[in-house]
Each structure stands twice: as C-alpha cells, then as structure tokens.
C-alpha cells in the first residue's frame, strides 16, 4: 500500500502524464464530468461518476477501421490504423471497471477484435473507491464492491490522502515509476472502506433480486405480458444504450469523403428502428420488440452465454438519464413479479 497527500495530487498526475496520456474525470462546464486528458490545471471532479462511461476509452463512439480507394474496377485497401498510445485511466469506479470484464467477453472472444484488444493492452486502469454512492447505485446486486474496486491499481481517498494499491503487473510497473508515492500500512484504508460500506448497505436499490433469471426461464421472460406496458412510453432513443458501460452493439458504415471511402465503426442501439432493418423489412417491427431485446440481452441472453454474469453493472446511468425514466431496475422488478 502506498499513499500521497491530496495536496500532492497534481504532482502525481503530472508524473504519470509524462510517460503516458492520463485521463481523469473532470468537470466539463455543463454540470457533468467526463474523462478528460490531464493537463496542468485540470482537477478531479466532485461528481460521483462521468455521464459517458469509461468504455469510451476502449470502445470509442466512432473509429475508423480501414479506407478504400475505388478507381474503375479496381479497389485499393488502405490500412491506415493508428496504434493507440499507452494511456492511464484514473478514477474509474467499481461499476465501470466490471464493465471492462463484460466488454472483454465480447471483444476478446474468438475472433478477437484487435482494435479493442490493443487499447486494453495499452490502457492502465486505476480505480477509485466510491466515497459518496448515490441512490441510483446498485452495483452490489452484481457482487461489485464500491469500497474495494478492481483494476490495475485501486485507490481510496479521504480528506488528507490518496491511498494506492497496485493489483497487477501493469499496476506494479506504473507504481515503480512514481517515487512520490510513499509506503503506508494496509490498514490505512480500513476506516474509508468501512464508511463506504455503511452507505452501500443503506442504498435503496439493494433489494433488487435477480434470482430466477436463468437459462431455463428465458422463454418465460421473453413472453412476459409485462413488455407491453414497460415499453409503451419508450421514445426509441439511444440514451440508455449510449450512456451504458456494457452496451457494445455497433454499426459499420462507409463514408465517401470525396477522396477515399472511410469504413468506420460506430455505436449503435437495438432501440433504434433501423437496427435490424433489411431490404425486405425488420424482424423487430415495433418498439416493444426493440425494447425487449435490450433488456433480455442484459438480463438473460448475456448471462446465459457468460456463466451467469449479467450484462449490467448497476452504475445507474440509465436511471438518471432515460428521458422517460423507464430503466433496467423497473424492468427487472416487473419481470421478477411475473416469475413468481
């Protein structure tokens, strides 16, 4: 265990950013936080979490895959990808850190997505325990501990100091390069963790119960009469999808810039009406089917294929941001009623 005085945080950030690009959650001037490349003067946000999740750093909203040049009958394939530079992601919350495990299961399974993989290899994840969990937090439902998050390095903060524990080889290597971190006793974080746990134990959504969302209940969940009511006000926008740390569906499109054709990948949402549109129609013609797909994927399909791990980490972003507040907690509770 290491530590550094809060007053010296700037030195720490400065030292890290000498070697690698450092992202920290900082206020963006619009009453919200986002991961921002650190530069002199940038300070940590007071906000609990960023509006856009940390997945952006590994799976950006838009990225170029390859370019083409068409001339007559000939096509030239121009592989112009730029390899990501090493970077450090500081201040990731426990929920977002778990989301990387979920994204890994998609992108690192065969065939491996090399764009994602190289970013994962280049990124060092430093998590930060959640001093002030909020009412929309329910990471505990998924066995995530906001008082002791995972990551290459785990950090805790109190008024006086930042405590630092390297968990992986990557984390150790980074720690070794930061002499301003001084040794301290393991117990130093105990009072912080205890305080966090006492708040976590009082969170109003702790009662969310997902037992019974098993493979053998998949069709029962799919056919639940609840979907009609749950989806009736859904606007069909992509807010929930785009703020979600685990949503990873994407589209591949071509853009002709006049010189070359750029083939890019961008986030997509199963909530959008054109998501499954084919020349002869769509297999999910109404918002009910599209809405159901999103929640079935998180609560049933994904866990069925991934050792029971749900495709949700309880970060609460969709609870705060859905324009009509129809979020995964409401959906899961309504479905659970049906399973009884």
């Amino acid at each position, binding site marked *: 265990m290491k530590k550094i005085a809060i007053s010296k945080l700037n030195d720490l950030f400065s030292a890290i950013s000498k070697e690698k690009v450092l992202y920290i959650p900082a206020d963006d001037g619009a009453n919200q936080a986002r991961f921002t490349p650190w530069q002199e003067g940038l300070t940590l946000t007071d906000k609990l979490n960023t509006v856009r999740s940390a997945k952006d750093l590994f799976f950006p*909203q838009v990225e170029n895959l390859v370019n083409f040049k068409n001339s007559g009958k000939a096509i030239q394939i121009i592989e112009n990808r730029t390899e990501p530079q090493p970077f450090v992601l500081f201040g990731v919350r426990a929920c977002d850190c778990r989301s990387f495990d979920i994204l890994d299961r998609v992108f690192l399974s065969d065939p491996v997505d090399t764009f994602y993989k190289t970013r994962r290899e280049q990124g060092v994840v430093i998590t930060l325990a959640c001093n002030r969990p909020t009412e929309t937090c329910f990471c505990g439902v998924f066995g995530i501990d906001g008082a002791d998050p995972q990551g290459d390095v785990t950090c805790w903060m109190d008024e006086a100091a930042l405590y630092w524990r390297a968990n992986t080889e990557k984390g150790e290597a980074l720690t070794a390069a930061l002499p301003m971190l001084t040794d301290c006793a393991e117990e130093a974080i105990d009072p912080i963790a205890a305080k966090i746990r006492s708040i976590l134990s009082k969170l109003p959504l702790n009662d969310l119960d997902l037992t019974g969302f098993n493979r053998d209940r998949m069709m029962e969940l799919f056919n639940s009469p609840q979907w009609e009511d749950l989806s009736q006000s859904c606007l069909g926008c992509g807010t929930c999808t*785009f703020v979600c740390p685990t949503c990873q569906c994407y589209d591949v499109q071509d853009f002709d810039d006049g010189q070359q054709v750029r083939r890019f990948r961008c986030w997509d949402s199963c909530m*959008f009406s054109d998501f499954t549109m084919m020349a002869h129609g769509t297999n999910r013609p109404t918002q009910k089917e599209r809405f159901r797909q999103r929640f079935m994927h998180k609560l049933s399909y994904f866990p069925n294929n991934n050792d029971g791990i749900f495709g949700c980490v309880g970060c609460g972003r969709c609870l705060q941001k859905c324009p009509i507040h129809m979020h995964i907690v409401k959906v899961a509770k309504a479905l659970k009623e049906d399973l009884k």
Partner: protein
Amino acid sequence: MQERLKQKALELLENGTADRILGWKIGEFFYDLTPAVFKTRQEIQEEFVYSPFAGANLSKYLIAESRKGGKVAVFLKPCDSYSFTQLLKEHRIWRENVYVVGVQCGGMCDMEKLRAKGCEGVLSVGEDGENIVVETLYGTNVFPRAELLEDRCITCKSKKVVTFDELIGEQGTELESDRFSQVAQLEAMTSQERFAFWQKELSRCIRCNACRNVCPACSCEKCVFDNPGSGVRNKAAADSFEESLFHIIRAFHVTGRCTDCGECSRVCPQNIPLHLLNRKMIKDMNELYGTYQAGADPDTKPPLTDFTLDDEEPSIVHTRGGQ
C-alpha cells in the same frame, strides 16, 4: 394537487368519459416518473403521480393514443397544451378521441440542479412552503423551490392552458418572460465567439436522438436522418460537422411549429441547451414577421406557410455579401 388529479382520473374512468388515462406513473424514487396509460381504478390509485417532477410533456403520445380507438383522457400542463394545440393544427391528433384536462403548474423541478448542489443519495422530497426539503443518505437539505426549477420554467412564457375540455385550478395568463435574453446574449457575440460556443456545446452530442424523439414537432413518420439513402450518417460523426448539422437542420425543420416547450433540453443526456437554437428561430420569426406563438391557437397560419406581399426576404447571401 396530486389528489385532485387522481380523483379526476378516477371520475373520468368511472363515468365513461374516457376508457383510459394518460398521466405520470410512480417510479423507484420520487423523481423518476414515467408517462403511462392507466386503464383501471387500481392502477390509478396505486401508481398515478402528479408532482414537481412530472415534467414530461404528454402531448406527443396522443398522436398514437388518439388513433387507438376509444377515448383517452390526458392531463396537460400549460406548456404541454401549446404542443397539443400545435399538433391539432397539423392534424396529427384525432381530437374527438381525446379528453383534455388542463392542470396548472407551478414550475417543474430539475434533478440535475439538485445534483449540481452536491445533493447525492436522495431518498425523498417534501414541500415546506416555498422550500423543498430533501432527505438524502447523507442528511437533510433544504432549498428554495425557485433554485431547483428547470430552466424552461424560470422563463415560463404562459400559464394559460390553450386547449382543454375542463380545467383543474384557475386558468392562467400569458406571462412577461425574458426567455429571449440568452439568445440576445448569443447574438451579441462575434460570429467566432458564437461558433466557439456552439462548437463546445454540440461537441458533447452523442447522437442518441432523444431531443428529436421527444419533440412534439418532430412527428414525421420517417425522419430524414433515419433514411440511409439521404446521405447523412445518423449514428456517427462521420465528420465533425455532422452533429451541428443535425441540430441545425432540426431547428429549421421545426421553425414556426416549435412551441418552445423545452423538452429537447430537458431530455438531453449531455445538457446541451438545444432550446436556444429553437428560440433563436422564434425570435427571428417574431422580428421578421411579427410576434407569433406556435400552438397558441388552433387556427392561425404559421408565418412560414403564410404569404403576404410585404413579407421580409432575409438573405444571408444578400446581407453578408455586402451587396
């Protein structure tokens, strides 16, 4: 107020005026209300809510609801009633299938503002005169209600319910509002400053389409941005100009029909002040063609679909070309 609305909903259902009620449904917390159709007495008694967090404008749902047969009763706040009336004017809502109950509104509260005050872990709210009392995991906070009002409510343009079958509470009047002052501030900027302002704001756009999908004026069966043949890329910033174009095209398309209900800014997950684009268009229209408020009545023609020989012919090419 909530009790009066509930009683009214029950009464309308029971006396056969409506066979279903469009209102706001209780959530996990006091603030996460969802628009919902209530069909039974029990649903209304247990789940119907009207509170300072019932910000959602229900009028757009009536495009679909009014076509479903039977009669739907709906609660409309003053600003919602402008959207409703505008949709009537555009023949998008089947009026005969809707029973409108107008409700007065003291301004809606904004959870974002509560959170901006450092209020996290909120569990409940109570009203104490003009104060809002917030219980949180970390203690009790008291704020003047005015400090928690949504921006659109601070510059409320009207407390008048334009179209209704009955009213709960007093009919209100149009208000003197300084809602164009922020637009005037933008106009006072140099074009570079203004460009920088919008560049910064729109750079946060994540193309979720929430602004479009919630907008009562965006009622096209198929949006041009969803048409793969249109040449625009609806999901991605293929070039850095895309997000700005999306919002500017949308602002143009709703000009003369936008009632300034403010839903676009309310739902934006990235807190982009989208309503300012629409207000700029409204302000320009007012200055060019005389004051006009979309949705203020069911009959008048919006300036852009009307024609007189004296019409202004504003031309950026003309004025900026220095001719």
